[in-house]
């Protein structure tokens, strides 16, 4: 019989994520680890008053930073108001595909950022440095729109972080790219970005992708050798419309759901999923850096 998966205690709740748009997204990417799509209502949009209450709790509990993700945060009608509220007390990061960021929205984001003493970081996702390969994964036109959004924000004084996955290696393991980071630097420089910021994240084989072949799990022995700070679930939690989950990768997974409220969500989480093994092996954090 397989041993029970190990648990990890929360050291301190530093990072609070909001699954602000649930699993609803304007795109339907072929690799999405939580299968977000325009018609996926597994996790619903979060209501603004509920988010404000969580933010109050977070301030009381000494949370250091707040992240908004989805789905696509900008499909939420109240998102900019939510963002403005969060930035009164916290540094904030937003994970977006950039498709809905036009000039007016970029101007508004600039004004919101200027109204806060804290940093507003915007992360824009693409999955390949070649347009055709990206669009095959994320949908037609998404490459151009993401780069346009990056440039609109960059031209307004933001330093957005281009978030890229290792999909190229996943899809063509024999033709892997040695200098993925360098390729994206080149891409951003080609559109006039002098100070590119890039975050490369591994592939999580769940959601739209098939589960990995063979058993991959974190064992108690692995944890004994590990600095607990190396795993993001030692310092972060995510809230969705239906409660608190261990991490942004496992949001919506019944076994990763910890509680209805933030206090309850401080309990140990189980490293039961193959994706926990991915984090263990790669040192992955969903945070910016």
């Amino acid at each position, binding site marked *: 019989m397989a041993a029970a998966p190990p648990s990890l205690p929360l050291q*301190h709740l530093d990072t609070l994520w909001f699954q602000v748009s649930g699993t609803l997204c304007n795109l339907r990417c072929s690799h999405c680890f939580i299968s977000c799509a325009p018609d996926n209502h597994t996790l619903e949009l979060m209501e603004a008053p509920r988010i404000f209450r969580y933010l109050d709790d977070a*301030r*009381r509990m*000494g*949370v*250091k*930073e707040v992240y908004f993700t989805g789905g696509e945060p900008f499909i939420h009608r109240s998102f900019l108001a939510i963002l403005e509220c969060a930035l009164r*007390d*916290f*540094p904030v990061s937003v994970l977006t595909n950039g498709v809905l960021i036009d000039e007016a929205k970029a101007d508004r984001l600039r004004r919101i950022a200027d109204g806060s*003493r*804290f*940093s*507003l*970081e915007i992360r824009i996702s693409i999955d390949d440095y070649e347009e055709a390969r990206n669009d095959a994964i994320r949908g037609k036109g998404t490459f151009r729109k993401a780069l346009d959004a990056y440039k609109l924000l960059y031209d307004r*004084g*933001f*330093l957005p972080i281009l978030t890229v996955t290792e999909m190229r290696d996943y899809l063509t393991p024999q033709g892997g790219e040695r200098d993925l*980071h360098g390729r994206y630097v080149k891409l951003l420089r080609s559109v006039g970005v002098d*100070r590119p*910021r890039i975050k490369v994240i591994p592939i999580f084989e769940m959601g739209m992708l098939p589960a990995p072949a063979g058993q991959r799990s974190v064992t108690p022995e692995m944890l004994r050798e590990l600095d607990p700070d190396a795993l993001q679930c030692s310092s972060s939690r995510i809230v969705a419309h239906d409660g608190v989950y261990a991490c942004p990768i496992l949001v919506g997974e019944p076994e990763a759901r910890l509680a209805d409220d933030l206090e309850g969500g401080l309990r140990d989480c189980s490293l039961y999923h193959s994706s926990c093994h991915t984090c263990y092996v790669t040192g992955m*954090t969903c945070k910016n*850096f």
Partner: protein
Amino acid sequence: MAEKRPDAGRRYRRVALFGGVYNNYLALGELVRECRASQVDAIFCLGDMGGFGPHPDRSFPLLRSGEIRSIAGNYDLSLAQGNEDCGCGYTDPADNHFARISYDYTFRNTSRENKEWLGTLPSRLSFGLGPLKVRLCHGSPRQVNEFLWDSTSPDHLLSGFLDSAGADVLCCTHTGLKWHRELPGQKHFFNVGVIGRPENDGRTNVWYTVLEYDGRGFRYEFRPLRYDHRRLAREMRAEGLPEEFVETARTGWWTTCLEIMPSRERRSGKF
């Protein structure tokens, strides 16, 4: 590591604080000269003696003279423990690439005796400034390599640190950028800056902090410190340190360790 008790009961009127010597023994010499001239009661170094600059062992005669009270930074702990890296907490490959070069250089060129001395430093210090209790740490009270930047440190987090420490004034360093925030209850948080590397503002000077309590109450001042940065740059080049580091000493713009910075702080730099 235990707090050094002898300091816990000491009361001062005017103190100078700095972090991040980063092997910049020329700036350290200037700092001590300035402090002697301005009659500070005590000088405190908040750690990270190595990295960036040339000739690590040249900082230690002053650091070990008894004139400066020091706590350990992550760099100091790594050197003392013989760790493989500086433990700065970078996560980006470009940041880590340059951190590795300066750590390997510093490790090779720091004597065993000096490494052992680094291992004796406390992780924190407390002292009195007039009626105020001042607490010193390197990164944050809870983590030696925590980055506390102005734009990413909420008031409630800093107030929590001050409450836990039972302090009126909390001082840290680690990021390389100085800043101050007054918090509810007349509490104060400082990042005291570093004397090893200029502040990414196109100026070649470095910074330290002076805290004072006199009849008029609590005051603070961030003081610019000039030193022979051209000589430092020459020596860095002669030691074969990366041209990127030399450029920072020469121009005052950071060229490395950029990825860990929040966008607001990075925007004010050149790269």
